[in-house]
């Protein structure tokens, strides 16, 4: 059964502020309005935008705690991954050593041949 995400409590305020912003924008752009009325509309636009910015910022700051928790949950897996990386690197080093011995046999054989 599909679950639905809980409604964002900020959404109604966000919608109301946007509706108000539309009205203020219409007043600002209305050529029939006086300069004073248009200036007032401009100030209102700025104020509404500040409120919307606060809502948008609240989403971001509100997520920080959850994000920290999710990031902390990565630690056990990351530790295992680092251990695996270390193990593989160690194996690689041991293989290099083994290969050196194998290829070095020829040098030993050549050197020993002096005494043969």
């Amino acid at each position, binding site marked *: 059964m599909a679950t639905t995400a809980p409604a964002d409590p900020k959404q109604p305020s966000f919608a109301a502020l946007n509706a108000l912003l539309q009205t203020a924008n219409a007043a600002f752009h209305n050529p029939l309005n006086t300069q004073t009325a248009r200036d007032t509309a401009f100030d209102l636009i700025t104020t509404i935008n500040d409120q919307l910015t606060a809502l948008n910022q609240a989403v971001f700051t509100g997520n920080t705690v959850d994000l920290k928790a999710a990031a902390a949950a990565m630690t056990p897996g990351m530790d*295992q991954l680092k251990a695996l990386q270390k193990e593989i690197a160690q194996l690689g080093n041991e293989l290099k050593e083994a290969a050196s011995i194998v290829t070095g046999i*020829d040098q030993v054989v050549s050197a020993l041949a002096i005494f043969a």
Partner: protein
Amino acid sequence: MKAPIRLFSRSLLLCGLFPLLTGCALSPLATRTAAFSTAATATINQTNSAYELVNQTYFDTQVALLVANYNRSGFDPSKIKPFLPPADLAVRAQVLQGLQQYATLLAEVSGNQPITDLETQAKATGSSLKTLQTDSFTSFKMNGTGLNDQEKNLAVTAVSALGSILIEHERSRALPGILDKMNDPIQKICTILESDLGTADKPGLAAELHQNYDEQIVVQQKFIADNAATLTPEERRTEIATLPKLVQAQQQGDQALAATVKALTSLAAAHAALAGTKTQKDAPAFKLELTQMAQDAQTLNSFYTSLKSK
């Protein structure tokens, strides 16, 4: 006659073993993990760009408002603040760095670097031995009992093949469990980052970006109206020409953030598919998700590259 026969049979044995041993050098899961890592890196890098874009646009809006209101309000330096609080932004940077490190480690443990290093070393050793053979020591080689170049190469090949098996054994023992363990945090992180960005019709960074451009457009229109009497025709043309550029920048910003959300969704889906198909040889479900993720990462990259070049 015996020595050439022995050499031939030894060579045959090693040559026969080699494909068997190295045929499984990179398991299907390791190959898929490496592919995931490459595509994930591109998405992770560009997610940072989304935060930078929103912060920069907010700053530009503050500057535009300062200019518009300067005669009435003057300049108060304390009002100039970043939209994204530095402490919260630092958490995103850390998380993205963590994801990046995860992708890098996945690539490292899934790759064939130890074997490549071994082969590089073997080549270097081989060349020094070749030098040795050409000098006076050559004449002291025991008759037919020393290792010739071909045999040395085969011996190193055998070590490489055995190494591949050992490494793959370690990998197949640990990697599936790690992918399972990481899947839940990866899903949660991607969901939260997507929620940060949101869409233009919901509170979040996408709405803020869109709104900032709207505000810049209104401020620009007010500037043109307020100074209509004093602007020369050329100045007026320049100021008016700014308006469609702001609309264009708004459209591109909206698209870039929407693409970031899509790429994060793809990253989460691809990781879930990677973990979900860990025991499968062929994983068509993962391949589909990977293709989508790679495409989204590419789209994302082109959006931010285009925005940064402006």
